[in-house]
């Protein structure tokens, strides 16, 4: 072994350690912020709960009632905390799905909503409700299938002879999105009147109607898929150089592509089945994390997941409290925060 190659290896290892350290400290910071957000969001709501007792009970993970009445305890642990956790799962899912699409497709605008993936999942969820309404698990399952089909169609459409240019990709996304929007309108005509009313809300992105039964599944998918995608972050880094270069550098391009498509569809599917189409999360959060932490996917992927969770928790807390006891759909809040933020990011030098 020559001296130079040894030096390169040492440098690489050193750089690797630096990256690892940076990843860990950034993620640790975000994780602490997320934990604080979960606690604060659980203490805020349309009903006032005694602050110290609630905090004490939350910290004891519900083992201790800390002087809360049975009703207050119910509100905290049966209604509020599950909703906050679901907000975290939905936000984390959409943000890391967006971040991985952006890396894989080398397109800063690739986002579940713009690519039509969210709408694919929405059509799947609605069909599940119309035809298999009694089986709750059919919703995330069909949402996953819908999201995956939409992804594959968009990807196929986008790949011209010259490869998938960013413009082609977004155009294909727009076409598939509008097509699926008409499919959604068509499916609503199959539903009874009450459901149509609920669905207009749900389509905007709404966490209030979420089935608690699906919470463990949604949280589990978010957690496992985030880990799986982060483990492939190095391949995604190389893919950002272009598919040819990545292939030459030893990345199994086809395998990574399928993996990202399947995992992102799982994430978007479970998020949409739980909360409808919450927009802007997959766009704004990855941009923010990349701007502040750099574009190394080993950092930006897990950071996007944590940041997305944080973002949707904040947005849903606003949706729950700003006109309490009435509520707004969380999608309206994410769009209200997200759109101006995104314009700022675009305009900034």
């Amino acid at each position: 072994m020559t001296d130079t190659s040894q030096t390169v290896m040492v440098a690489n290892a050193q750089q690797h350690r630096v990256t690892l350290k940076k990843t860990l400290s950034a993620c640790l910071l975000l994780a602490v912020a997320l934990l604080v957000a979960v606690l604060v969001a659980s203490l805020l709501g349309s009903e006032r709960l005694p602050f110290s007792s609630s905090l004490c009970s939350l910290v004891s993970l519900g083992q201790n009632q800390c002087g809360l009445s049975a009703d207050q305890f119910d509100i905290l642990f049966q209604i509020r905390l599950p909703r906050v956790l679901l907000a975290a799962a939905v936000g984390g899912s959409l943000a890391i799905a967006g971040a991985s699409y952006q890396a894989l497709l080398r397109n800063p605008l690739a986002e579940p909503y713009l690519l039509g993936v969210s709408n694919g999942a929405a059509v799947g969820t609605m069909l599940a409700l119309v035809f298999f309404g009694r089986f709750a698990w059919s919703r995330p399952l069909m949402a996953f299938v819908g999201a995956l089909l939409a992804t594959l169609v968009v990807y196929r459409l986008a790949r011209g002879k010259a490869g998938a240019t960013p413009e082609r990709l977004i155009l294909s996304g727009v076409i598939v999105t509008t097509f699926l929007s008409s499919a959604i309108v068509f499916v609503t005509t199959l539903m009874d009147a009450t459901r149509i009313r609920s669905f207009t809300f749900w389509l905007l992105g709404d966490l209030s109607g979420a089935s608690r039964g699906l919470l463990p599944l949604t949280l589990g998918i978010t957690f496992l898929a985030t880990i799986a995608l982060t483990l492939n972050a190095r391949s995604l880094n190389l893919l950002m150089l272009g598919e040819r270069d990545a292939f030459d550098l030893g990345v199994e391009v086809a395998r990574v592509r399928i993996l990202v498509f399947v995992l992102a569809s799982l994430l978007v599917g479970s998020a949409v089945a739980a909360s409808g189409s919450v927009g802007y999360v997959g766009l704004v959060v990855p941009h923010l994390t990349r701007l502040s932490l750099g574009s190394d996917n080993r950092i930006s992927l897990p950071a996007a997941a944590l940041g997305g969770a944080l973002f949707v928790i904040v947005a849903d807390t606003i949706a729950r409290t700003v006109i309490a006891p009435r509520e707004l759909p969380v999608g309206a809040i994410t769009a209200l925060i997200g759109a101006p933020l995104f314009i700022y990011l675009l305009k900034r030098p």
Partner: protein
Amino acid sequence: MLVIALSLTFACSSVGPSNKNQSAANKEYTDDVGRRISLPAHVDRVISLAPNVTEIMFAVGAGSSLVGNTTFCDFPAEAKNVEKVGDTFHPSLERIIALRPQLVLVSTASQLEGFTEQLRSHNIEVFVTDPHSLEDIFRSIAQIGELVGKQDTANTLVTKLRERTTAIENAVKPLPRVRVFYQLSAEPLYTAGRDSFVTDLIKRAGADSVTAEVPGAWPKYSAESALAAKPEAIILPTGGSMGEGNSTVAEALHNSPAAQQGRVYKINDDHLVRPGPRIVDGLEEMARALHPTAFK
């Protein structure tokens, strides 16, 4: 909001030159959103764009004047044979104009501001009903009766409905009032607010809605506030034309006193969500469910 929007569109449309026949025989009316309309003394071509309005038309004996209604209009049975102009949310403007009605009756529930303006530009008068209480519903029955020349039948009907209402109110008066949560839909949780006639009905049925002071007619409501209000009974409008979608209590309310004590009452939604003559049936069913001892 709606009132402002409607009065604005009206203000705009009244600026342009009017080409209507203002014959001396025409009568002037003011509808529930404050718009003034002018109709000939004899009105026999009417389109109803809401099921409650269709029910009122038949109940006052003007069913034969209906030349069009919506696919949602399913009561009484004859209403199904009337030509359909679409559903309440998406009526066909072309079909309405082709049917040459003198008057189109709209319920604000269908939210048709832009549509109303277009009809007016075709010399078709639009009358909006927007009841917020049982008294308002009675008034709209009498009003529609007057528009179509059936005042007497309408007034007799309203008198009968009033008598039934008074009987129900008297029966429940001595009994302790019940705290009620009205669940319009479970996912997401919708209820009846301050501006809803349902809140008034609940009051007359010897109960108090826990959401009586919430702004709006049909607000989306916080699950934790619903639970914290500790409702003693829950009313589920279901089983009618809305289907079975609302036949179970929202998950968040499973630990409410109402659900724990089995005081969850399903009432035919057609009797509760349609502000027409059958609303008193809904009132009676609700009173019987909440106060069974009053009706022995």
